[in-house]
């Protein structure tokens, strides 16, 4: 049975921004995309395990604060070196103004 994890309120994140949320011993990055949708990826960069939430969101790209590696946070796809390994993504459910994910 997948476990439902409540991450934050939709109002916690400004538009075109990201926050870090730690749950269940894991770190997540929660994004508020232009247009209003929410996305969740693993919180750590696949290059050198830096917290991505410290990075810059531009459109649908999150740029790592350490070496400016890039990912499309909707798909997790690595979009710019030195990031080469894709980021894990988690499908999001919005309910009552809360951002939740299902963790299996």
């Amino acid at each position, binding site marked *: 049975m997948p476990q439902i994890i409540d991450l934050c309120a939709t109002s916690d994140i400004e538009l075109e921004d990201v926050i870090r949320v730690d749950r269940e011993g894991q770190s997540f990055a929660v994004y508020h995309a232009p247009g209003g949708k929410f996305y969740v990826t693993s919180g750590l960069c696949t290059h050198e395990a830096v917290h991505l939430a410290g990075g810059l969101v531009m459109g649908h790209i999150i740029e790592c604060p*350490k070496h400016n590696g890039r990912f499309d946070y909707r798909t997790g796809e690595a979009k710019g070196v030195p990031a080469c390994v894709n980021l894990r993504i988690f499908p999001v459910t919005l309910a009552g103004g809360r951002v939740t994910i299902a963790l299996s």
Partner: protein
Amino acid sequence: MPGIVIIGAGKAGASAALALRQGGYTGAVTLLGAEPHAPYDRPPLSKAALLEAEPPSPAWVLTPEQAAAQNISLRRGAEVTSIAAPARRVHLADGTTLAYSKLLLATGATPRQLPGAEGVLYLRNYEDALALRTRLAPQSHVAIIGGGFIGLELAAAARQRGAAVTLVESAPRVLMRGVPAAVAAVIAARHAQAGVNLLPGVVIARIARAGAQHHLHLADGRIITADLVIAGIGAAPETRLAAAAGLALDNGIAVDEGLRTSDPHIYAAGDCCAFPHPLFGGRRIRLEAWRNAQDQGEAVAQTMLGGTQPFQAVPWFWSDQYDLCLQVTGLAEPDAPTIARHLPDGTVLHFQCDAQGRLIAAAAAGGMRLGKEIRLAGMLIAQRAHPSPAALAAPDVPLKSLLIPMATADASSS
């Protein structure tokens, strides 16, 4: 028809080879590297590679499999000895020659050597890092000459491995080149806290060997005895091939805004080239930075495929020392005044503007979150923005709000 030949299988060469394929080039691409390895990243060599318990493998940039998949002919241990520019051929150390339609010089840089000092170690290659890591032992005393990025990263690594460290710098402070004094002071304080004996403003008269030890004779008469001496006193652009081929040089291989050399069939990119930067009044600069090598590799591939865009990425550099992250964007004047912005985690961001109020540089040393602010500052520099000093200094005015809105929603490269 002969294809494109790239001399130097480092960051710039590998980036160009991949970008040629991404740009649709279908001719032959040959990447010639003197080192016995496939292209790898150098930044870890002065950081993780010295600290990890087991000797690490190089951080590959382009594996032989990836090269093969892109139909890039990657030749390791292939040193080019001369260029016959009129005939458009390169000569290799193994006696063979190779014809080219276009040639890219991505030969990097070589550590400057201390004249007349034997037994001094340097750090540029994977082998250099392997040789160093076993010798940064507890109980040993390491003398580091040079307070630039490499010297300081080496000092941090040596301390973290338990060695005693003395760092000698002839300039009045560390990081004189390209880092504002206020930011260099944060770095110096962190090294002092870690127990590094920092000696700025000190000139070395000579280095003598006494058995397994080295004596550094300072100009003021002091003598420092060390088990190991490592020099990080800068790097010289690798221009020998270019010079012998008669290409124009100017603190590196001189190229134009499209990274073309003075020969119409030869281009240059990365640490080896000096280029006029449109954002800084066309001033000719040479950078030794990972992002620059990556970006110039991509840009020169575009030029080689007929593109006419000038290269004008904003210079950007990072360094990691202990838990500190250091980043610089733009071209900082070491002693010009700065405007300070205090970030919530205590890190201070320092901006520099020119006489007309245009933002030209930003730098900070501290927590990782400064990366985002430095990146935004870089975007402001790219936009030739003239932000008000009050806005730059106000932590509650987001740097993002100072940007001129761009048409594209998704990230563009600068």
